[in-house]
């Protein structure tokens, strides 16, 4: 396998990383919102959030992507491939992250909230300054895990026309007929990316202040 082919794979992996990172971040923002809805205990918020989560966890990502890419034009939104890919991945990871976060918020010891109430913080301040940082700290390992899963799942976005790592590998396998070498190389690139994600996750986690006990 030539250097040229490996370069092509590396180049395609930029899309893999880019799409994954952007989706994780957008998904994170949506997930905070969703977990807030879930924890609100008000049916009008809880039920829509539950349906959202059920749909995006239950329906295969491939189908979700096709729906977004091909159905949005029907309502007048003709989104380019890369945008469709990011929307699809973001919504999907948001559903998973929301579940994690709900668990995180539920595990914030009630005493920490009470001590904040005692010094007069309003409920908004308590959410921003106390609950959210602690919940995020608690769910951080799950977040790193999710990032790796999304990096791998991003191979599916080729279905809406983004040539990321896996698609490039398939394309190259289809013209050189050297699938084993090319797939092995792609696997190594995935491994390197995910290894870096896991490593930085570890480093960040260790630098975060301690967990509530």
């Amino acid at each position, binding site marked *: 396998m030539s250097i040229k082919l490996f370069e092509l794979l590396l180049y395609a992996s930029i899309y893999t990383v880019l799409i994954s990172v952007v989706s994780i971040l957008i998904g994170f923002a949506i997930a905070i919102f969703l977990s807030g809805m879930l924890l609100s205990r008000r049916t009008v918020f809880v039920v829509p959030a539950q349906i959202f989560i059920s749909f995006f966890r239950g329906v295969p990502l491939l189908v979700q992507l096709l729906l977004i890419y091909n159905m949005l034009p029907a309502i007048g939104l003709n989104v380019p491939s890369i945008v469709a890919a990011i929307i699809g991945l973001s919504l999907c990871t948001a559903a998973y992250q929301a579940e994690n976060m709900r668990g995180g918020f539920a595990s914030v010891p009630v005493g*920490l909230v009470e*001590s904040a109430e005692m010094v007069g913080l309003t409920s908004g301040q308590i959410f921003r300054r106390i609950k959210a940082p602690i919940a995020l700290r608690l769910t951080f390992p799950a977040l790193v895990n999710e990032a790796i899963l999304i990096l791998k799942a991003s191979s599916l976005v080729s279905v809406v026309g983004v040539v990321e790592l896996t698609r490039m590998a398939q394309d190259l396998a289809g013209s050189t007929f050297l699938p084993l070498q090319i797939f092995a190389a792609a696997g190594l690139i995935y491994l390197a990316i995910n290894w870096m994600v896991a490593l930085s996750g570890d480093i960040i986690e260790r630098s975060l202040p301690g967990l509530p006990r």
Partner: protein
Amino acid sequence: MTFPAIAVKNLVKKFGDTTVLQNIDLEIPQGQVSCLIGPSGSGKSTLLRCMAFLEEATSGTITVNGEILGFTENTKGLRERVAPAANRAIRAQVGMVFQQFNLWPHMTALGNVSEALKTVRKMSRKDAEERAMAQLVKVGLEARAGHYPSQLSGGQQQRVAIARALALKPKIMLFDEPTSSLDPELTGEVLNVMRDLATEGMTMVVVSHEIGFAATVGQQIAFLDHGKIVFTGPPKEVFRKPRNARLEQFLDTYLDRGASMLL
């Protein structure tokens, strides 16, 4: 006219069907240390949490320096909710220290103490940290200001928790078993800080198993059993000639062991 620091009137607290506090009447005098003692499950914590408005009483009223906390009862005997902002203002006079410290793990000692000064009192970061530092000095922790709770010993954590409550300059401090999750030696650190506060004339309500502390520092002692106050009085009365059978039995557990120490 001077009010009692806290006045509890005819307080009832139910959790579902079980009545945890029954018709409590209690006055916490200004500038004194009042201790709540009693067996486990007698309702001490619940009463203290009602005073801090962490629990809503089922009926009855609590006034803090003459102002009604949480609910008023109108002329028809119906309960009306006091506006949250008004409640926060009244509660600002009350500081609470928990058994489990409840420090925020993602902030340093200084961060814990200065947080409310910044967000609630809207002080500048610099002013807030200055005042917080002064509090940490007071509890003897200036050297630990930059440490996170997980890097502090239990006694140090509890002292940060006290500093956090004191930073807001409350008129009244509530303590719920502030030393019972501490080792006996660490307990000393915290009791010393509390003793200092008492000498300064801070109004304090202390739920405590430290009968020794109650006896030496407490000026009023209330004994709860099964959600009722069965006895109130100065320590001498309580410890010297308890007239209540239940109280006598309760104290026996301690005295037994206390006596044996001096063998």
